[in-house]
């Protein structure tokens, strides 16, 4: 591969065509990166399987990563697959397809991040509000108006409803994730 790129990297054994390897194969340096990547992918696959056995990742995640790294190995061993895939969907080059897909995926991920940040903001405000109201509840005595009561019936009822539905939703989510 290095030779094909026109980089005159002096790797003596490879200059002569390749290294003698077991099984009568000749290892060219074009294959070096492929071998490295395949070994790496197999290593990652093993790690992923281990994590799944340890129940640290869900079945969905496990399948996703298996498919992903198998696809990586496929593209590494047979680079022509990218061109094939590209032509299948009407795109000229494999690398073009990769860029288009990446852009779409990135937009989606960024959107998810925005949503997450928004949720975090809302959660923080909830905590800050709760603390603020509780603190005032404690200092009731220092107020000008004497008969102050923060027994917010309306707010409490609404909160109780909110909390209950939030709690059931959270436990539902947990159930779903466990499957």
């Amino acid at each position: 591969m290095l030779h094909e790129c026109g980089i005159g990297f002096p790797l003596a054994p490879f200059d002569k065509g390749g290294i003698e390897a077991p099984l009568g194969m000749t290892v060219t340096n074009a294959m070096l990166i492929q071998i490295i990547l395949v070994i790496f992918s197999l290593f990652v696959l093993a790690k992923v399987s281990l994590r799944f056995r340890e129940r640290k990742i869900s079945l969905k995640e496990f399948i996703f990563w298996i498919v992903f790294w198998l696809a990586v190995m496929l593209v590494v061993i047979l680079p022509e697959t990218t061109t094939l895939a590209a032509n299948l969907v009407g795109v000229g080059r494999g690398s073009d397809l990769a860029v288009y897909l990446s852009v779409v995926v990135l937009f989606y991920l960024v959107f998810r991040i925005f949503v997450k940040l928004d949720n975090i903001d809302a959660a923080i405000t909830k905590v800050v509000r709760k603390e603020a109201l509780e603190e005032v509840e404690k200092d009731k005595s220092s107020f000008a108006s004497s008969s102050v009561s923060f027994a917010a019936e309306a707010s409490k009822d609404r909160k109780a409803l909110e909390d209950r539905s939030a709690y059931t939703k959270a436990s539902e989510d947990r159930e779903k994730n466990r499957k």
Partner: protein
Amino acid sequence: MIDNKVWVVIPAWNEEKNIGRVLGELRKFTPNILVVDDGSRDRTKEICHEQGIICISHRINRGQGAALETGKEAALGLGAEIIVHFDSDGQMKPEEIERMVAPILRGEADITLGSRFLDDRTKIPWTKRYFILFPAKIFNWIFTGIWLTDAHCGFRALSRKAALAISLKQDGMAHATEILEQIYEHRLRYKEVPVEIVYHRYGQGFRGGLRIVKNLLISRIK
């Protein structure tokens, strides 16, 4: 002077320069004042305590929308029948609280919204009026279906019913549009009331407006 069940909620952030004066004026009209100190680093809270005014403190700054929501929760808990939104920077006139509350007391509306443009007492820089407020009004109309003469006036009065129905999720300045959204959603009766705002500062510039649009778009997509 003002009905006992009316509570004035004042969101404040680092307003030590103005809050003392504002509270002093306001107290002549009603003792029911709730200041929400939105994570101020100055003496806002202390000044409130000095005047014996209830001050609810956010430990960190969360935004005007969040402060108003906190104030509303507290006011409802105090048995408020009407909640008034009042600014802490001295740009609003306490005398006008009565006319803001009147339509609600008469049962004509669930919520009254102050408008700087129903009469021409308020002097606004023309750049603000045509380049910021006008697009804002269009924007509000697109998002909420409500066309107001004033897009963004913080002077409001809500009946207890409106206060219970409206729940602000927007922490920042986008709450103004969110209130309109919820007015539309809950079919609340609203009425605009002419008020005078005395200007010292420019307020939300164009950048602030853009931030508001971004916040609202995100909340829509969620």
